[in-house]
Each structure stands twice: as structure tokens, then as C-alpha cells.
């Protein structure tokens, strides 16, 4: 944890057509840390993730990654720089095999040269993927699919991983496994920015957190401070 800012979002506005989904959103992510974005459905969390990864572009404001403005870049250019997004629902390729899904994760030339090493690391993290490597991805269970999505994200050799609700709809025991994997990923020096609806879980796993409501960031800080914050207590823990 060296505390350098790796990602900086400066006052961005994002529109879906004529509907404004993000209003003046700013945040910064420190290298080597886990940062959480917490909020209910429709609060703009996924929009923020898609904007950072280049699927959407801000109409105002900038996004800087390692000091470089990336807000006008295409998704494949942003992935090249070292940001990978695990989209909501995982979105693995159903009619590709498990191994092909992992292979396509290392599509960009930089990651391709480290394919073998990264594949071994993913298999270490999720041994079940090695066992099932020849199966079609659509035949996996929900938890296995999410492991595959996480593994596929890792194959691109990212410096920063964006995870959009990776535990959504999974049994608690599987969620524990995924978060255990997340801690191992972090121990490898990869910075993580994740989106969650589960406030308790987020405040345990992350170092710092941002809380979003209807397209705005309403609260941010270190998780220890946020737990004590009266507004969080009231809104999310009901005390």
C-alpha cells in the first residue's frame, strides 16, 4: 500500500441519451487498495464503471489513469493501459469453452505474451476452472461462471480491476470464496474498485468507500470512519 493515486475521476457528467445518469462525480483510487462504491439499484454505479472502462464517455469532466487522461479512449485502448472491467452479471461467452473464455481474456498483445503464466495463476486461484476447462461456459453453475468471469478479467494482466456486483445473486458461501479470491488478487499488487449493494460486506472488505445516490456521490471516506458515520448507520443499518 504505497498510497499513490492510480485512478482519478474529476467531476464527470454522463448521459444515457437525454437522461443524466451521473452528476458531477469525483473519486480517487489509491494504488494497491480496495475501494468500494456502494449504492442501491439505479444509483449510477454501473454507469460509472462503464464510463471508466470506455463503454460510455463523459460529457463533462475527465478521468485520469496513472496521470493520463483516458476519458476519450475506446474500451480496448483502456484495457491496454491496464484497466479491466468485470461487468454486471459476469457476461462470460456462453458458447465458448472455459479455456477459450480465459484465452480471450488475454487478447491484448501485452497480456498474450504472459498467457501461460497468467493461466497458471488463474488455475491456482480457481482450481475448478482447470478441471472444467473443456466445458462450454454456459454449462457452469452460477458461482463457477462468476469465477470464470473473474479469472477472465485477470488474464488481461490488469493493474486496476473494476468489479461490478460480482457477488449478485450468489449463495453466501460462494460470496465468501469470491472475496477470499479478491484478497489474494490484492496481495498480488492489483488495485481493486468494486461496486456492491451489500453495505456491511463492502465496509469490511474495502479500505475506503464512496456512497452513491441517484447519480451523485453523497459520502466518502475510509471505511472505519464511514461505519461510525451517522448517515450510514441510519440509511443502511437502520439504527
Amino acid at each position, binding site marked *: 500500500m504505497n498510497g499513490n493515486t492510480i485512478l482519478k475521476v474529476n467531476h464527470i457528467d454522463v448521459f444515457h441519451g437525454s437522461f443524466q445518469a451521473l452528476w458531477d462525480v469525483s473519486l480517487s483510487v489509491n494504488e494497491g487498495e480496495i475501494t468500494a462504491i456502494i449504492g442501491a439499484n439505479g444509483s449510477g454505479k454501473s454507469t460509472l464503471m462503464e464510463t471508466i472502462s470506455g463503454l460510455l464517455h463523459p460529457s463533462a469532466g475527465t478521468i485520469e489513469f496513472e496521470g493520463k487522461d483516458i476519458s476519450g479512449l475506446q474500451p480496448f485502448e483502456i484495457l491496454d493501459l491496464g484497466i479491466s472491467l468485470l*461487468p454486471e452479471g459476469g457476461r462470460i*461467452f456462453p458458447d465458448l469453452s472455459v479455456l477459450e473464455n480465459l484465452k480471450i481474456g488475454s487478447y491484448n498483445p501485452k497480456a498474450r505474451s504472459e498467457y501461460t503464466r497468467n493461466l497458471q495463476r488463474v488455475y491456482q486461484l480457481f482450481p475448478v476452472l482447470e478441471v472444467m476447462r473443456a466445458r462450454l461456459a454456459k454449462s457452469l453453475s452460477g458461482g463457477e461462471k462468476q469465477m470464470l468471469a473473474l479469472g477472465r478479467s485477470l488474464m488481461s494482466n490488469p493493474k486496476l480491476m473494476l468489479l461490478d456486483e460480482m457477488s449478485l445473486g450468489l449463495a453466501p458461501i460462494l460470496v465468501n470464496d469470491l472475496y477470499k479470491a479478491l484478497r489474494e488478487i490484492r496481495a498480488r499488487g492489483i488495485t481493486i474498485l468494486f461496486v456492491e449493494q451489500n453495505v456491511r460486506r463492502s465496509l469490511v472488505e474495502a479500505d475506503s468507500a464512496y456512497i452513491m445516490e441517484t447519480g451523485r456521490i453523497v459520502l466518502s471516506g475510509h471505511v472505519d470512519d464511514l461505519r461510525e458515520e451517522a448517515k450510514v448507520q441510519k440509511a443502511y443499518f437502520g439504527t
Partner: protein
Amino acid sequence: MSILMDLATPIVMGILLGGLYSLIALGLSLIFGVVKEINIAHGDLVILGSYFGFVGLTFAGIDPMLSLICGLPVFFGIGYGIQRYLLNRAFRISMDATLIIAFGISIILQNTYQLIWTPLSRGLTTSYSVESFSAGPIYVPLVYLLDLIVAIVVMIFLREFLKRTYMGVAIRAAAQDWKAAQLMGIDTNRIYAYTFGIATAIAAIAGVFLGLTFPFTPLSGMSFLIIALGVVILGGMGSIAGTLVAGIAFGLAQTIGGYFFGVSAQMLVAYTMVLVVLAIIPRGIFGR
């Protein structure tokens, strides 16, 4: 027994002809499966392949099959350019816009062919175009056999390319979920252009073998597009094996239909079969 003997030739011819149909439909199916465009100009690009063989044969005496060595990269380039500089831009407007542009390309190509090669019917006549062989009561022209063999070889190559190379897996990934593909670092516009290029190169092969099998005119593209559309729909869109099976089914329906109801009813029988199959399995034989 005698009806079976009489039917033997139409059955064999139908299967072999089906090879040509599936080869013509393969590029259309690939573009539909990956880019989700209906390339109305596909038939005309096939006919461009026929004229390409015609020019090589008439002016330089080059065997049409040999002319493909230089034809494949040229046609790949043409297809790549069409997708990259025309259709990828139309995408941003709507899918309807790509349909209209492809229709425009089709009309431009047909008229250009008329201008350059006149509306006369042409054919690729080579030393082997009159060769044939017979096995018992069955009599088969050699080019028909080549049609099926080449179709199968091209399909095996395409299948292995899509399975074994990074580009191939990326093409399949983009076909399944373009947004997720972009997140994997895949430039989907580039992938679409490559796909269109490959499909057009396959169209050139189909065009040469079409020219060896049938006479063609500047307007032939449209009638073969209609056959190819039938094959693609019947086979399940975007499936290679489905395209082969459907092509053969189509060829069989045509020759057997022709045997029973006369030449004028060939297409009627073939399309009735498409309708009946779709009524039973709406996704096509190999549809997902």
C-alpha cells in the same frame, strides 16, 4: 425399383449442388452470425468472383481456380473496406441503415457489371467443364463434384480458423456478446471488418465455382442471394454445419422437386420445404 433408379441421379446431383449453395450461403451466414447484418450485396459479390474468374480466363488464359490465389486477398480487401468504411459508420445510425447501404452496393455492383461486361450471359468454360463420370445409372458432371468438395474444404478451414486462432476466438466472442468482447480489449469494429473480408473472400471462391457450374449474368447475384437466404435461415443463422446441411437439403428439394413437378417448380418445392421446416423448428436446423 425403377423409380429409385431414376431418382438416383437427381439425389446425387442435389447433394452436390447443395455444396455450391452452402458455399454461396457461407459468407452470408458468417456476416449474419457475427456482425448481425443481412448483406443484401452478398450475391453480387459472389458474381464479382465469377467475373474475376472470367477476366482471368478470357484475357490471360488463367484457370479460374488458380486465379483465386490472387483473388482471395483482393476480395478480402474489398470486403474489409466495405465494412470498415461504409457499414461500420452506418451501424451508429441503425441496423436498417446497414441494410439500405448493402442494397445500394448491390445496385451499384449490378450496374457496373452491365457496363463492363454487358448483360450477356457468361460462363467459365475450361478443359474440365465438360468432363463427367458415371457410376452405374448415375451420371455426374465433374464440376458438381468439385462444388461439394470445395465447400467442405472451405468449411473445415473456416471452422479450424475460428477454433484455433486468437482472431477466430475473438470473432466468436464478438458474435456472442459484443459489449463483453470490447471489455476483453477486442476492437469489435476491426473484427467486423475482418469478418466481412473473410466472408467476401469465401464469396469469391463460391463465385468461381458458380461460374464453372452455371452461366451467369450481371443480375444473377439476386437469384443466388435468395437461395442463400433460404439456406441460411433453414440452417440456423451463423452455423457452419447448419449451412452445409441446409444447402444440401435445398439442393435435394430442388432436384427431386424438379424430377416430380418439372423444372419450373424447382424453386417452389425448395422454398415450400424452407417454410415447412421453419414452421416446425423456427430456429432452423442448427439454430441456437
